[in-house]
């Protein structure tokens, strides 16, 4: 099943519109049953699928099924983030407080990598390999903006998987990483003069497909 491209903007509309949001809160879109039923009740098109918690078939097949697939998906994103901050530190573009923040965020991401590798093994699976990555490191401003983009995406990615995780332990771990990604995002948004809560009072999830499409330009293998 492919996720409609307009999904994210549809969610944003829901997030921005108090009436729709109440409906969203009350009835959700996280289950196919609810989605179908809602469609059957004659609501409009933006309620179409199960995408919020979506592990689309096409995207999921890349990482495997179930919790292990989600863990390896998250691990791939954390590997990318870790590699990014390592490159940023080496670039020499930052010093002082900004460098300290970047180093701290990078070390958080490394801890996430370690935890997810362990989680994949605990699930009896093989942890995903670190992808080869390459990032544009032209100047401090664009690097910080890219960092903000990456963190906002990372937070949305974790949120997008929360409803699909079966193991309570994996869910608890994912949630505790999710909010740290949110903290990173808010800090970097502050440094780049962007709103700390770009989605408003309710953060919007991203599907695996959306996230993978966004990070694809940085993956070289």
């Amino acid at each position, binding site marked *: 099943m492919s996720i409609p491209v307009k999904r994210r903007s549809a969610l944003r509309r829901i997030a921005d519109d108090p009436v729709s949001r109440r409906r969203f809160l009350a009835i959700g879109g996280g289950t196919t049953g609810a989605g179908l039923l809602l469609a059957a009740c004659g609501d409009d098109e933006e309620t179409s699928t199960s995408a919020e918690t979506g592990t689309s078939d096409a995207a999921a097949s890349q990482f495997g099924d179930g919790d292990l697939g989600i863990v390896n998906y998250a691990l791939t994103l954390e590997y990318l983030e870790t590699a990014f901050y390592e490159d940023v530190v080496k670039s020499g573009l930052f010093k002082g407080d900004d460098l300290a923040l970047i180093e701290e965020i990078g070390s958080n991401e490394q801890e996430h990598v370690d935890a997810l590798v362990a989680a994949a093994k605990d699930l009896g699976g093989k942890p995903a390999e670190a992808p080869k990555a390459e990032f544009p490191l032209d100047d401090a401003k664009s690097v910080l903006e890219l960092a903000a983009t990456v963190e906002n995406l990372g937070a949305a990615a974790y949120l997008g998987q*929360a409803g699909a995780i079966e193991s309570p332990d994996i869910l608890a771990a994912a949630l505790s990483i999710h909010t740290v990604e949110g903290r990173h995002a808010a800090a970097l948004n502050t440094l780049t003069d962007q709103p700390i809560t770009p989605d408003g009072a309710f953060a919007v999830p991203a599907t695996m497909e959306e996230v993978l499409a966004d990070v694809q330009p940085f993956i070289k293998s």
Partner: protein
Amino acid sequence: MSKIQTQAAPELAAVEVEEINRSTLLMKGLLAAGAVYGAASVGPLVSRAFAQGSSGDIDILNFALTLEYLEAAFYDEATKQVKGLDSTQSDLVELIGAEEQEHVDALSTTISDLGGTPVKAPKVDFGDAFSSPETFLELGVTFEDTGVSAYNGAAPMIEAKDLLATAGGIAQVEARHAAAIRLQQGESPVVAAFDETLTEDEVLKAVMPFIKS
């Protein structure tokens, strides 16, 4: 349930969607009865079905609502009382306060929609927290960090996946608030690489000093 039944009893359309996960058969029967006898006659039964199916979720949402009331009151009083915030800080306080109020409204509505009764706003007392920007921001950090840990602790117990996603979305926003206030305090935006998880008891113990009733 068919479209025809929905049209016959439109006021039942919303409840039906929520309940479909839990006791589809029961609801189908009730809704069919509603279509025949009118919504009012089955209303109490529908409410009871909800109470049985999702009382756990309602309790969790009411717990979250209490915290959000506390936070909303905290920022609301701060805007009136704290002197000496710079304009960035004032804007931040206003933004965060408005978002906490949105959480209050959304949680109240959701609890009602699920057939529960939203808790009332607690009476609060923040002591001398508003005597300076520093003391205010410090308590703000405590509230936001506690809020993050409260949501992270409660979320895995939520049964309905759609509510879990919503609670997660609120938790992320609390985390963003926490990070932003921490930066204003000259602190790191993070506590650690993993946000702590707190039980309901631990959270209540932490916030109890500020709740007067």
